[in-house]
């Protein structure tokens, strides 16, 4: 089973609450602004992500989703939509 962790870059307000709750310190705040003017969170170290969904649980903006993907090849497993 593999999972797709996506941060909706333009839905993120960069509050940083996901960053502090991540048990694996995967997330950081980007230096690049999104279309709303916020600096969104991104997965700085996606390879450490254990898909525990702590970040999703904490995010006040439902900007982080994790979906299950078919386990064919190497599914893109990180923040394609962000600038990470």
């Amino acid at each position, binding site marked *: 089973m593999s999972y797709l962790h996506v941060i909706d870059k333009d839905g993120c307000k960069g509050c940083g*609450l996901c960053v*502090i709750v991540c048990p694996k310190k995967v997330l950081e705040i980007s230096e690049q602004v999104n279309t709303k003017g916020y600096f969104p969170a991104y997965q700085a170290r996606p390879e450490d992500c254990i898909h525990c969904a702590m970040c999703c649980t904490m995010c*006040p903006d439902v900007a982080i989703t994790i979906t299950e993907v078919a386990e064919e090849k190497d599914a893109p497993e990180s923040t394609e939509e962000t600038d990470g």
Partner: protein
Amino acid sequence: MGKTFQKPEALADQVTHYCPGCTHGVIHRLIAEVIDELGIRGRTVGVAPVGCAVLMYNYFTFDFMEASHGRAPAQATGLKRVRPDLVVFTYQGDGDLASIGMAEIVHAANRGEKFTTIFVNNAVYGMTGGQMAPTTMPGQRTTTSPFGRKVEEVGMPIRVSELLASLATPGYITRQTVLKPKYINRAKKAVKKAFQYQLDNTCFSFVEFVSTCPTNWGLTPVEAIKWAEEKMLPYYPLGEMKTPEEA
């Protein structure tokens, strides 16, 4: 062990107007998840308050209406009395519920109205610009208590859950928070329980949330979480104040 996580159907695909780090968004999501899980979206009516959540109806995908400041419990009473088959909840902040609407919430709870109230307590008026609320902490600075809340002048903050729990009418009264994931998971269970009591026509149900307001508190979102945990939680203890089974 991985988990999936997606936006609930009851939540609209909208970016909220809330400030970064505002926990309204988390509480909204919990309500939406519970409504999805209980399969009640088609018969739920939300009553939005006056306050920061005044536009919350934009963020849900079921019937909604506004209330005027503090009157949501009276409005929900009217809705629920004439259509007991609907699932009705009010969503109110501390200025709305604990100040201007204190009479309405106390009487609705005391009548045992079969609706659910979500009470978001962040110790300050958000919408009108950071004024002192009935729940503002002693010494806390606000735009109308620039030298800090003076207890000798305006009394101690009101603990609404304890106050409502003192009513003899059976009810479900609990205080929760969403400051950290561990609290959030517990809070969701409480919200679900509250709606379940309504569905079973058991009692009035009330979930208070100790929440944050980074913008009006003048703190970063992360600092605000810390402040709420350190300053508010000792005064506003979490847990069930009352269940209908006790009565």
